[in-house]
């Protein structure tokens, strides 16, 4: 095997594809190698049962950076996002809270729960935009190394300090709070109503093994707000054809620039000679050579599986081994004979939006406490979407697919037996809980697919099933992501780069890491 490339990207997740697309766009000859039979990594759509398409793992796309959409011309490549209009949050007492995009309607609905909160919501939103505005430039930095005194790092640090100074005191103080507080404490400074806090608090715990009362979760809320800053979408959106459509669009952009994408091509090893990466070895024994190798995998795979320990300095090995994953989310996909009915829903068209099962702050916190000790929540929090209500082609006529994103499920749930028993018990908890809010659900189920964090690791290669390729906690952000000194997308191995969500600015379908990594590899600003 002698064919050579300028760059090989290991892993066809959305960040790997983004990086490949940017490299190809700059004229490089690029090859993407994906282990599975489909591209997209965690952002894939698969036909698990004949005729039913599922967005297998991830579920929302609003975080996709607008500059990526613009620069890679993703609209031309099939990116089509339906805004999720409403969020319906049923309460346990039969009441509900609905979040409407129409401000007047939203205000009236909030007013039912608390006139004060209705008044605070626009101010809170303004404040969050201001925070997002304050944080946005940081998302565009290549994180500096705080231990280094290199000119480049000092320059970034100075720019960082200047930026913070320019925010003014009030914003800086609010930013300090949002970086350190629990999402519930942070929201409690604005809102008095429990249901308002639980609806918004849910965003603070997605993808983390933390509760709404755990410090650090307010930042996760901001991370989710970022998607709205640029007016890219007015709400979280669902991609037509499932989230896999996003990956397809990015892949199409990459191909249009000449990139080659191979599926079912698992890489076993990066070939390193004299501290320089020169190619990759596939599991089938093939070797492919390239000037640059980029890993879109998580830090554990990038550093501990694809390369040998002897190639890395011991501090980095220690840091990578300390890096926390702690997958916390599960996924249940259902194929239904008909649309489920939610008796608490005042308007049946609300089924087109998101249905969030987070009826109270205590409910979310209890779900976390259960999972913390026992493996998964007995009554989990869920974000339920029925994509067939928007895109009926995802299932046979009249039938539906339901996508249930579940918090919390741990990687380990030893009390429930073997992996199959664990999956079964977890899936039952999800379906039983959702049935409390939609009693006819159980009778409609034709097929079900249950994914625990362990399955996500097994299937997609996400260590411990963390959808963000590593927890989004303060000690794992910015210059600590994935390790001090190696947050600049480089590795100790020359010509070996990282571009996954395990690098700054982190997880979610943002494509930010892929873009920044490509920028570093190309060594130019664009």
């Amino acid at each position: 095997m002698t064919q050579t490339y300028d760059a090989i990207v290991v892993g066809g997740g959305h960040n790997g594809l983004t990086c490949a697309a940017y490299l190809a766009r700059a004229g490089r000859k690029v090859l993407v190698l994906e282990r599975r039979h489909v591209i997209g990594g965690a952002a894939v759509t698969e036909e698990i049962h004949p005729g039913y398409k599922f967005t297998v793992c991830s579920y929302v796309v609003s975080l996709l950076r607008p500059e990526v959409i613009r620069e890679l011309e993703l609209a031309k490549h099939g990116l089509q996002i339906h805004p999720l209009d409403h969020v319906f949050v049923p309460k346990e007492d039969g009441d509900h809270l609905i979040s409407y995009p129409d401000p007047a309607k939203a205000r009236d609905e909030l007013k039912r729960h608390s006139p004060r909160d209705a008044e605070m919501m626009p101010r809170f939103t303004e404040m969050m935009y201001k925070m997002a505005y304050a944080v946005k430039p940081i998302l565009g930095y290549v994180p500096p190394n705080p231990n280094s005194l290199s000119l480049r790092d000092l320059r970034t640090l100075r720019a960082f300090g200047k930026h913070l100074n320019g925010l003014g005191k009030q914003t800086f103080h609010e930013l300090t709070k949002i970086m350190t507080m629990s999402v519930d404490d942070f929201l409690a400074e604005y809102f008095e109503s429990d249901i308002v806090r639980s609806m918004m608090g849910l965003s603070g715990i997605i993808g983390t093994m933390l509760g709404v009362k755990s410090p650090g979760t307010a930042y996760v809320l901001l991370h989710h707000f970022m998607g709205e800053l640029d007016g890219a979408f007015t709400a979280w959106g669902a991609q037509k054809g499932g989230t896999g459509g996003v990956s397809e669009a990015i892949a199409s952009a990459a191909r249009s620039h000449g990139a080659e994408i191979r599926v079912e091509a698992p890489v076993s090893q990066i070939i390193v000679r004299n501290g320089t990466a020169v190619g990759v070895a596939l599991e089938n024994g093939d070797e492919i050579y390239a000037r640059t190798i980029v890993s879109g995998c998580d830090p554990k795979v990038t550093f501990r599986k694809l390369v040998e320990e002897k190639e890395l300095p011991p501090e980095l090995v220690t840091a990578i081994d300390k890096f926390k994953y702690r997958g916390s989310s599960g996924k249940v996909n259902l194929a239904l004979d008909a649309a489920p009915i939610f008796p608490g829903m005042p308007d049946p068209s609300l089924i087109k939006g998101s249905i969030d099962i987070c009826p109270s702050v205590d409910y979310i916190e209890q779900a976390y406490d259960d999972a913390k000790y026992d493996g998964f929540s007995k009554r989990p929090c869920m974000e339920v979407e029925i994509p067939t209500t928007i895109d009926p082609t995802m299932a046979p006529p009249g039938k539906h697919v339901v996508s249930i994103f579940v918090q919390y499920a741990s990687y380990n749930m030893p009390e429930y037996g073997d992996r199959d028993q664990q999956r079964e018990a977890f899936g039952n908890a999800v379906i039983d809980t959702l049935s409390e809010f939609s009693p006819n659900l159980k009778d409609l189920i034709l097929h079900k697919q249950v994914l625990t964090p362990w399955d996500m690791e097994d299937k997609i290669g996400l260590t411990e099933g963390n959808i963000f390729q590593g927890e989004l906690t303060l000690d794992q952000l910015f210059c600590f992501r994935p390790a001090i000194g190696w947050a600049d997308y480089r590795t100790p191995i020359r010509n070996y780069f990282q571009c996954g969500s395990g690098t700054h600015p982190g997880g979610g379908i943002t494509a930010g890491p892929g873009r920044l990594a490509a920028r570093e590899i190309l060594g130019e600003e664009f």
Partner: protein
Amino acid sequence: MPRVTPLHSRVGPLCQGSRWEEWSGFLTATMYELDHLHEYNAIRTGCGLFDVSPLLKYDIRGRDAVTLMNRVIVRDAKKCRIGQVLYTTWCDDDGKVIDDGTVSRLADDHFRLTAAVPALHWLQHNAIGLEATVEDVSEQIAAVSIQGPTSRDLLAKLTNADLPNLRFFHCTQADVAGADAWISRTGYTGDLGYEVFVEPQNAVKLWDAMMELGDSYQMRPAGTVALDLARVEAGLLLIDADFISAAQTMFDVQKTSPYDLGLAWMVDLEKDFFIGQRALREEKEKGSRWLTVGLELDVTVMEKFYAEWGMPLHLPDRTWAEAVPVFADAAQTKHIGRGTSGTWSPVLKKYVVIARLRPEHAKPGNKIFIEEVIEAVSYSVPATVVKMPFFDPPRKKAWGAEAK
């Protein structure tokens, strides 16, 4: 669907063109006919009747009600006698205006505040350490506003109140059309006029009684477009047009102080502490960035500009409210501010504009230039700085013997 006011059964059928807009979540008629000029003329020659129920209203009660009011507003609530109404702004810590509205003292320990931006939380938060309760009574009180030269005579037919002796910016409790009401001699037209507050279940009865007398007093139901025209003539500011609430923008550059808005007269720096006092003291000493004044445009020059295109003079028949650049020179090299609302005044036959200028250019009589775009070409129309209000009839404030 936006909600409707207690008067919807009446204003709904009257609103022939279904020209609605949203006001605090309620449907409000912008005009009843397909044109607003009849309504405007009614305001200046007979009277206009407005459904102003969506107005936000808050009751502040308790031993420390006056202290709370004084903490919040820039005027001295202690000097507000029972039955008196103050027009005032309230500010944030930086002295930037959050909103403007009226404060009525209904009793020694009872104030009522009207607002455009929800203020329940702001008032409650600022009651810290005070014995004062704040209640949102917006939906417990319906309101109509009757504005224009004949309004007193019409209203007098329906009430036992001593209207000739009810002075401008005063209020009184009275029976109106058989219902218990508060009559306030206030409005948003700069004319003789009253606002009448009743319980929602009495609103229709009140409206009907007024409409029944209406013909004899050249009264018409009127909507917000006519009102907006009248308020510019009266030199009254409108939120989101002439200023943005400091609570609703994230950018300091968009915030304005009462001084910026030409409301220096209302800021009482000598009274007890109020929010923004420190910043406003400093601003008074150092000078403000802006001053809000009136402009009268030279329409004869404007007419010539139109003539260049072979067109007659075009004048706005309703209020525009957008930022229009103002310059010190016709060459447009020195930008000195912006027009914020403007209209052709049918009663004055003048093109009048409310503008926020650098203070050194804001002296009355100063000549400046405002941009007018004709056929996508920018022109500089000469304008003169004038004091507001533009239109200020004596009947607005007349009382006692003068009001007979």
